[in-house]
């Protein structure tokens, strides 16, 4: 056999192994997404046994909102670099709305088969002068990676009622 053919076969086997590995990662990644999303208990705001705690009365520098978020990783890969973005919108004096808090926090990883409760603690609000507080809604986004960091996911919780 010519040397060129030997080199070609080695490269072909290498490419085949790469393609097969990627295919396995893709298939398991898809199955992981279905496994996690097929049960509503896998993503909970707040998780069972936990509750949202807050203080939105008195001076703004005493305000805080603590919101627990539970994620159960029933997928085949670790969920990596979990970051939670938290935006709070306040409606006051009838219909005026303003964003009083915007921030994010990194909560690290959840290994495959494990679950995690992440408590987002929001402080330092920018609150306008108001006479009536109507509502506080939260937009929560959880960012993360799985399938060897090849697939990125975003979980958007929109207009989640915090107060009243």
């Amino acid at each position, binding site marked *: 056999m*010519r040397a*060129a053919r030997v080199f*070609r076969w080695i490269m072909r086997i290498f490419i085949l192994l790469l*393609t097969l590995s990627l295919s396995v990662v893709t298939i398991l*990644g898809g199955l992981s997404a279905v496994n996690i999303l097929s049960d509503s208990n896998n993503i909970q705001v707040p998780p069972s046994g936990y509750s949202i705690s807050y203080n939105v009365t008195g001076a703004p520098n005493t305000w805080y909102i603590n919101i627990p978020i539970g994620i159960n990783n029933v997928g085949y890969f670790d969920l990596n670099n979990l970051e939670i973005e938290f935006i709070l919108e306040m409606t006051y004096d009838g219909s005026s709305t303003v964003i009083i808090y915007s921030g994010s926090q990194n909560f690290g990883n959840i290994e495959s088969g494990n679950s995690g409760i992440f408590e987002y603690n929001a402080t330092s609000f920018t609150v306008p002068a108001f006479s009536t507080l109507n509502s506080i809604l939260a937009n929560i986004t959880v960012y993360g990676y799985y399938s060897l960091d*090849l*697939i990125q996911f975003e979980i*958007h919780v*929109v207009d989640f009622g915090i107060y009243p």
Partner: protein
Amino acid sequence: MGAPKNMIKGFIFMGIYTVITIVVPLLTFGYIRQLSIEGYAIQLTQQGYEIISFWIVAFGLLISGCAFFTYSSPKQSIRKGVFALIQVLINCLYMWSYKFSGATDIQIDISGFGFVVLLVQDLVLVYMGVYFLTIAIKIYDLVDFTVNRKTIREARWEDK
């Protein structure tokens, strides 16, 4: 291998590539379109589906056509090398079409809660990396088939 056998081989591989690049992806996206997880519908708009389907069929047909010419060409011939290279380049465009047709951003709406987005661009880029290696080996093949044309022909005649 004689010409009729090469033609049959070409048709067989054209069929295989048609199934891999057109039938399986269309069935998968058709399935995703109708899929609902715990009653939550996966959002894939009619327009989005049509754009994805168009590019899958367009590039799938080109790949299948090239596969016919690649696999019906004589072993280690320059023709085979040229068509194999064209085929892998179109394969790259086919992979890239998944990105620009919006098939790499999968959004799942969860009514009363929000939505979940899965972004698979990085995965597509890794596949593109593997295709780059394949392009390299196909170029190597083409150079080898051209430079060693005489040796390959002599070996082919000896086989006959």
